[in-house]
């Protein structure tokens, strides 16, 4: 629809970014990725399991034409996140200004991003030429600092990873959007299609999700739902919705009623 998402000079036809984790098998994942219509998918970097031989790699199952967005999931310090990104760059076999989803969490329980470490890592990675997309709390000040640090986009959460709580604080997102000069992508928290549509209607540039699709009873159907919901929310945002009013107003003519 001539309304592409542009991040760090790269253009993506879809505003939906999807993950590759938590699927019950690769075949289901592949079908869901295709149904989602996404052209950017997140992947994690992990030690190769030296005992498991010949096990088909993830990459065989990612549809052609989808770009990879390696993440730093599992890192709790800026240093580990930076090391992980360097390995991810190597795995990408070069590529100029490689994309990375920077994610530095505080701990394994709260699963909230550690803003201090995230900002520290972002500065290092930008200096090293990465195209950095940081996952962050919905803190307008932190989001602005990440933008100022040179991040190509900023990805505030809608709610904690995998919580399915939707957009907990649309007010903060609105303030973030009004002060941002880079794309804002809602990352994490979406539970169902209307959550994704609502995020887009707020004016965010994209939505990133994994659990909402992979964890649904029918991941392929949910992937399709999310594709449609992101398109619907984007269109509704641009179409200019009607104002909210306490009292309604008739949608049929007031005059010309019979027997009046």
């Amino acid at each position, binding site marked *: 629809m001539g309304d592409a998402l542009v991040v760090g000079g790269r253009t993506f036809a879809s505003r939906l970014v999807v993950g590759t984790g938590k699927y019950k098998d690769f075949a289901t994942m592949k079908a869901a990725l295709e149904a989602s219509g996404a052209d950017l998918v997140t992947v994690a970097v992990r030690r190769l399991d030296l005992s498991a031989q010949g096990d088909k790699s993830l990459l065989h199952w990612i549809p052609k034409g989808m770009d990879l967005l*390696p993440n730093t999931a599992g890192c709790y310090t800026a240093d580990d996140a930076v090391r992980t990104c360097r390995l991810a760059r190597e795995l990408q076999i070069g590529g100029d200004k490689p994309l990375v989803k920077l994610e530095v969490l505080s701990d394994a329980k709260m699963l909230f991003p550690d803003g201090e470490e995230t900002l520290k890592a972002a500065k290092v990675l930008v200096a090293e030429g990465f195209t950095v997309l940081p996952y962050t709390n919905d803190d307008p000040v932190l989001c602005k600092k990440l933008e100022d640090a040179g991040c190509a986009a900023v990805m505030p959460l809608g709610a904690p990873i995998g919580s399915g709580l939707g957009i907990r604080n649309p007010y903060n997102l609105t303030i973030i959007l009004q002060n941002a000069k880079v794309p804002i992508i809602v990352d994490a928290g979406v539970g169902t299609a209307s959550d994704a549509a609502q995020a887009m209607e707020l004016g965010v540039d994209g939505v990133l999700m994994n659990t909402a699709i992979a964890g649904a009873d029918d991941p392929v159907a949910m992937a399709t739902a999310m594709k449609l919901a992101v398109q619907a929310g984007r269109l509704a945002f641009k179409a200019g919705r009607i104002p909210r009013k306490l009292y309604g107003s008739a949608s049929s003519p007031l005059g010309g009623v019979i027997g009046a």
Partner: protein
Amino acid sequence: MRATVNGESVELPEGLTVAGLLQHLGIRGERVAVERNGEVVRRARHAEEKLAPDDVLEVVAFVGGG
């Protein structure tokens, strides 16, 4: 010589290169990256770079993630 690979201490032949290590580990085809003592070893140098005793090595690949 002994070295640490993905957190485990293993016995490796002397003078092994990174490329040799991967072969030794039976890794082929796989798209992997190697970190030696905290520094990435670029693919181009796999054939030259020799390992040393007590090296700490990380051999990683992409897996599903969100």
